[in-house]
C-alpha cells in the first residue's frame, strides 16, 4: 500500500503538490510546528550558551501581593469543598470568596461549612445571575491587589498562586493566564484526547503566544487580574466567553497579558464525545465570531489611537485560522471530492501521514518545557488519533461559526440565565 502511495505521490505534478500543501495549511498544523521549531531551536541554543533554561518556573517567590481567589459557581456542591481545601494555606496573604450563584444543589450549605475558616468568605445570591455578575459581586467585598478567578470544580498545584502573581511586579501586566490540565485525563478516550489538546494548546500554545505578544485569552478556570485594571475595565461582561472578552478589554486598555505556564489548574473535562461537541460549539460560538469579529473588531482599526500591531496580528490570526480556514476546508474537501475521487484514499493517507509528522514534532517540543514528563509521555500515546480529532473539532467550529454569524446563537445559551441574556447587549 505504501509502495502504491509512493508511486502516486511521484506521479503528482507541481500543481497537485501545491493543492496538497494548501490542504495542510488550512488544517492548522504547519504554523504551530513552524513556531515551535523556531522557539525550540532558539531555546536550545540559549540553553547551550548560558546553561540556563530560557523559559522556566520562577525560582524566587519574592513578590507577595495580597490575593483574593473568587470561586463563583452554580450547583457546584459536589466539588466546591475540595476546591476550597486545595487553596487554603497555599499563600500567605490569601482571602477566598465563594459566591453561590443561586444554587439549588446544596452548594450554599457545603460552602457555609468553610465560612468560619480564616480568610474564607461565603456570599449567597438567592437568584442566579450568571458567572460574570457572580465574579463582579465579589469585588466590593475585597481590597486585594490581585483577583484570581478559579473554577469551582478545579484545584490548583501547590505553587499555583505563587507562580501566577509573580508577573504582576511589572506594572504594565494587567492579567496572567495559567495552564489548565485535564484532571480526568485517562477516564475515556475523549478526555485523553482533550488532555493532549490542553497540553498543546494551553500549556504550549499560550506560552508561545505570550512570547510573540499575541496572547488574547486567560482561562476562566485559573486566571489572575490586577485589581486596579479590573476596576478600570469595570469587571467581567456577560458571558459565555467572558474570560476571552475580559482579556481583550484589558488588552484594549493598554495592558499586557502574560502566560504563566507553571501555574497549573486541574479541571474535569467532558467524558463523552457528545458533551465535548456541545462544549466546543458553545466556546466557539462565544469566542471567535462574537468577540474577534464583532465586539472587539476595533482592535484592528489602524485609524484608532489605541491601534497596536500585535493586536492586529492577534485578530488576523483568529479571523484566518478560526473563521476562514475551517470554511475553506469545507470548500476544499468538496472540490477534492469532485476532482479526484479515484485517488481519494491516497490523498487522505498522504494528509494523515503529513499531519502526523507535524504533530510528532509538536509533541516532541513539549518535552523541552514540561515538568510532567511521565504524564505527558502517556498523553502523547494518542498522537496517531490527533489529526482525526482536529478534523472533528473543525467541523464543530464550522457549525458554531455559521450559527453565530447567521443567528447569534451564543445569546441563547443557558450558561447565562434567561433574564440576563434577554437584556444584555447583542454584538
Amino acid at each position, binding site marked *: 500500500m505504501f509502495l502504491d502511495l509512493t508511486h502516486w505521490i511521484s506521479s503528482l505534478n507541481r500543481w497537485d503538490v501545491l493543492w496538497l500543501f494548501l490542504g495542510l495549511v488550512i488544517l492548522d498544523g504547519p504554523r504551530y510546528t513552524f513556531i515551535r521549531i523556531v522557539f525550540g531551536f532558539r531555546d536550545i541554543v540559549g540553553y547551550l550558551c548560558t546553561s540556563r533554561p530560557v523559559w522556566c518556573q520562577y525560582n524566587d517567590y519574592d513578590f507577595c501581593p495580597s490575593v483574593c481567589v473568587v470561586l463563583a459557581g452554580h450547583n457546584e456542591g459536589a466539588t466546591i469543598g475540595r476546591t476550597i481545601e486545595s487553596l487554603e494555606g497555599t499563600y500567605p496573604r490569601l482571602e477566598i470568596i465563594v459566591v453561590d450563584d443561586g444554587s439549588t444543589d446544596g452548594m450554599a450549605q457545603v460552602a457555609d461549612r468553610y465560612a468560619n475558616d480564616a480568610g474564607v468568605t461565603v456570599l449567597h445570591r438567592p437568584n442566579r*445571575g450568571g458567572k460574570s*455578575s457572580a465574579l463582579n*459581586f465579589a469585588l466590593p*467585598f475585597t481590597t486585594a491587589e490581585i483577583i484570581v478567578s478559579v473554577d469551582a470544580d478545579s484545584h490548583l498545584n501547590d505553587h499555583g498562586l505563587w507562580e501566577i502573581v509573580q508577573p504582576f511586579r511589572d506594572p504594565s501586566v494587567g492579567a496572567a493566564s495559567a495552564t489548565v490540565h485535564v484532571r480526568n485525563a485517562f477516564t475515556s478516550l475523549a478526555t485523553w484526547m482533550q488532555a493532549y489538546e490542553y497540553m498543546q494548546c494551553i500549556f504550549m500554545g499560550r506560552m508561545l503566544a505570550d512570547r510573540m505578544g499575541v496572547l488574547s485569552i486567560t482561562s476562566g478556570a485559573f486566571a489572575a487580574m490586577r485589581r486596579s485594571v479590573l476596576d478600570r475595565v469595570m*469587571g*467581567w461582561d*456577560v458571558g459565555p466567553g467572558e474570560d476571552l472578552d475580559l482579556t481583550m478589554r484589558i488588552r484594549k486598555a493598554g495592558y499586557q497579558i502574560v502566560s504563566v505556564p507553571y501555574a497549573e489548574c486541574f479541571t474535569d473535562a467532558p467524558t463523552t464525545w457528545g458533551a465535548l461537541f456541545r462544549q466546543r460549539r458553545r466556546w466557539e460560538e462565544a469566542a471567535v465570531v462574537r468577540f474577534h469579529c464583532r465586539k472587539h473588531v476595533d482592535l484592528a482599526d489602524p485609524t484608532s489611537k489605541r491601534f497596536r500591531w500585535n493586536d492586529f496580528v492577534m485578530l488576523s490570526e483568529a479571523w484566518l485560522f478560526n473563521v476562514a480556514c475551517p470554511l475553506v476546508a469545507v470548500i476544499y474537501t468538496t472540490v477534492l471530492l469532485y476532482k479526484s475521487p479515484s485517488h481519494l484514499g491516497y490523498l487522505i493517507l498522504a494528509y494523515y501521514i503529513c499531519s502526523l509528522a507535524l504533530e510528532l514534532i509538536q509533541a516532541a517540543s513539549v518535552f523541552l518545557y514540561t515538568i510532567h514528563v511521565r504524564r505527558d509521555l502517556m498523553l502523547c500515546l494518542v498522537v496517531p488519533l490527533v489529526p482525526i480529532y482536529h478534523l472533528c473539532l473543525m467541523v464543530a467550529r464550522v457549525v458554531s461559526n455559521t450559527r453565530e454569524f447567521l443567528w447569534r446563537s451564543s445569546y441563547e445559551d443557558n450558561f447565562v440565565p434567561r433574564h440576563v441574556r434577554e*437584556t444584555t447587549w447583542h454584538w
Partner: protein
Amino acid sequence: MKALAQQERTQHLVDKLQQEFGTKTSQSTDASNRRRFPRHALMRRVVALSATMDGTLYETERIEGQTWNVSAGGLCLELKGRSQFEQGPLLVGVAGPDQSLQYAGVLVRHVGSAEGNAVQLGVEFSGPTHHVLDPNNLVPALQPDNLKIEFNLPERVYQSWERAGILKKFLADRIQVCSRCGAIPTLREGCPACHGGRGACDRLIHHFACAHVASVADFESDEEITCPKCRSKQLVVGADFEFLRGPYNCIDCGASNTSMESIAHCMGCHHRCPADQLSQVDIWAYHVPRFDPLDFIPE
C-alpha cells in the same frame, strides 16, 4: 477598695442575721415552739460544729453526741464532753440509716445540763448555718452590684465548709466573662476594626445587561439610575437590575468589611473586644446532703 466592700458586705450580713435570728432566747418562745411542732423520738448519732455569725465553721472543733427527739422546727440533742455551751449558730450532722451524715443548720435556743459530762440542747432550724445550706446560696448567681457571677456569701464561709468536708464541689456551668474584670458581657454584631456596633450593610446593584455590580451611589445620577459601565439610563428594578446585599460599612471608623463580627461589651468595665477574646471560666457550685426532719416524722 474591693476588700473594704467585701468587709462591709460581710458586716451587713452579720448584722442582718443577728437582727433576724437574735442570740437571746426565752422560755416562753421555746414553750410556744414546743406547742407548735409536736416532738417525735429520734435516737441518732450526731456531730456538731460551731460557727460564727456569718456562717464560718470552726471546722476542727467537732463535738459528738446524739439526738433525743425531732420536730418540724428543731431538734433536741445531747453533746458529750461539754458541761457548758454558748447559744449561737451550730451545724449538726445527723447520722442517717446508712450512717452517712445529713446536715442541718441550727441556732441553739435552749441549753440544759445532762448526766455526766454532757449538755442537752434545744435547737431550731434557722440561723446563719441554715442560711448557708439554702440551695440558692450553694450556686453562684449574678450579683447586681458588680455584674459578676458569684456566691451570695463570703468565699471564706464556703472554704471553711469545704475544708470540713461538708460541701462537695461540682462543675455547674462554663461561661464567657470579660477578660479584664470578670463581669458578664453583652454580645452584638459589630465592626471587626473598631468593635463599634453602629454600621449598615451597603446596597449593591447588579445591572443585568453588562453584569456590572456596584453600590447604589455609583448608579445614582440626576435622580435616575444610570449604569456607570455601559451608560444605560432610566433603569427599572426587576427588569434591568436587582439589588444585592453588599459589604458592611462602619459608621464609627468608616471601615468596609465583608461581614460583621461578634463583639463583646463588658457590662462592668465597658471594655469591648471580639467575642473570641473573652475569658472562659468554670462556675463551680456546692452540693451537701441536707437533713430533712420530715423524713423522721410519721404522718
